[in-house]
């Protein structure tokens, strides 16, 4: 009797982890599918309103989580990656300054509006060359990698950019939210490999949903952008560059992708432990090492919380102006994603 009980228990103990894994993967898949479908439905139904609400609520916090994540991924000692990080930080700083100075120089009448596409094309070229340099530097860190294909790809993209600079910038606006999904993929591979195949299957839903949105909303009439805020939102989604495409469809697709981006940074990555314990600086290498800077890191995170609060206050007082300011400054986090993603590959 005793022996029979032991056999039974042994069998159960072996079965449980597998069942738990399968159950957790199913729960994860259900969460992903539900979130993606809900985001698509909301973005299609009330694109302008949902855009306003999501940017108000999540734009600031998602930047805080990204900062927290980047600090965690920053090595305590750069070692062989010194050149890589030097180029990365210099690029982030200079490209952000250049991006912010573009509208400032325009409003200061330094150049006319007719030169705007050339200015945009120049900035995009610098961005592409910077990313190309980072790819080459990263490729050199491992002798098994041959990433020299990056050069022709970068030059090819530069050529496309000079043919249609404004459309190229619009493509960046739409492609940036998808980078978060790539981050999640790399983290699942490290922390939850058993969820990876489920996640990738769920991603197949994305092109289907986007195709469905394009098909359904492509025939709808354009949104009424009769006030300054609505006009800004439709312009951000490319309504001016694609006048024959329904702005309802453009804004919906953009808002949908933005919602996924926010969901990954605020919910998915912290849930799988990619950002570490949110309030603990011990998971950040720069704070953990013996001669580290725990107080400085803590101060940076606390000040960032205040900046998020200030952003909410700004949105409450003057939503349109704060939105413009936010999307100009937010280019820094778009740029910062490139080197940290390359470090994950």
């Amino acid at each position: 009797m005793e022996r029979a009980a032991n056999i039974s228990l042994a069998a159960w103990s072996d079965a449980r982890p597998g069942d738990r894994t399968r159950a957790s993967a199913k729960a994860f898949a259900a969460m992903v599918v539900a979130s993606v479908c809900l985001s698509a439905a909301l973005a299609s139904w009330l694109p302008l309103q949902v855009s306003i609400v999501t940017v108000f609520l999540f734009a600031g916090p998602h930047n805080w989580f990204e900062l927290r994540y980047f600090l965690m991924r920053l090595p305590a000692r750069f070692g062989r990656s010194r050149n890589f990080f030097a180029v990365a930080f210099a690029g982030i700083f200079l490209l952000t300054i250049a991006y912010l100075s573009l509208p400032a120089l325009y409003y200061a009448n330094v150049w006319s509006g007719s030169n705007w596409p050339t200015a945009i094309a120049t900035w995009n070229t610098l961005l592409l060359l910077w990313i190309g340099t980072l790819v080459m530097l990263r490729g050199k860190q491992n002798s098994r990698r041959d990433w020299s294909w990056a050069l022709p790809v970068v030059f090819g993209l530069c050529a496309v950019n000079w043919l249609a600079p404004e459309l190229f910038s619009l493509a960046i606006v739409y492609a940036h939210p998808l980078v978060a999904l790539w981050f999640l993929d790399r983290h699942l591979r490290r922390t939850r490999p058993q969820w990876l195949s489920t996640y990738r299957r769920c991603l197949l839903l994305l092109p289907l949903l986007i195709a469905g949105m394009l098909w359904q909303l492509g025939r709808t009439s354009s949104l009424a952008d009769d006030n300054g805020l609505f006009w800004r939102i439709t312009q951000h989604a490319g309504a001016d560059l694609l006048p024959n495409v329904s702005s309802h469809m453009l804004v919906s697709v953009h808002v949908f992708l933005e919602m996924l981006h926010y969901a990954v940074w605020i919910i998915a990555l912290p849930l799988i432990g990619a950002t570490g314990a949110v309030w603990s600086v011990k998971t950040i290498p720069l704070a953990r090492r013996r001669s580290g800077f725990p107080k400085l890191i803590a101060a940076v995170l606390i000040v960032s919380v205040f900046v998020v609060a200030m952003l909410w206050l700004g949105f409450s007082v003057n939503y349109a102006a704060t939105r413009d300011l936010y999307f100009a400054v937010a280019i820094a986090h778009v740029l910062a994603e490139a080197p940290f993603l390359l470090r994950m590959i």
Partner: protein
Amino acid sequence: MKRTVVLGAAALLLIASAVYTFGDIARPKTTPTPQAGKIIFHTGLQIVPDAKAYEARLQISEATLQRLREATANTSSANQSMTQRLMQSSTRTMVAGMFMFLAISFAGVWFARSSQRRSQKAVAAMVMVVGMLGAATVIVRANAGPPGYVYWQNLPQNLTKGKDTRGGLDIEIVSGDDNIKLIVPMKTTKKPGEE
């Protein structure tokens, strides 16, 4: 790799010097030419002979009228075709061409240097994708139907017989205050010896 970069930089310098050389050539004098019309959208037209009608009528559906309104509202510079945009900026076209040259050059260098099997597989996959895209383009173009003038070819005979004729139509905005003009494509097939 260093040699490639040096060669690339030398090529870049050479091209840049060519740009400056051409920059010294005086711009040719432009002769005033009548402004070309701009096609704002494509629709269809049916010519129906009516023995009972006393006046010619141009019937436009509400949907087409709405599209016409939207198209005329969007006749700003943002609605120009890619070719029109490029023609306005020769600098951008030159820079794009230079980057295309660099892309193709470096792709060639990479292709020649890639001796690893995996790279060759990637190249083979790329060539296959490009081939498939090309084939798809050919198929799509092949399915585009005959050119527009074919539909209008039987217009005289159909008018004589009292039959209707249907074909494609571009709505074009032209300068001036002339009446509405319908230009029907007619390919004259002259026999040898005819004037």
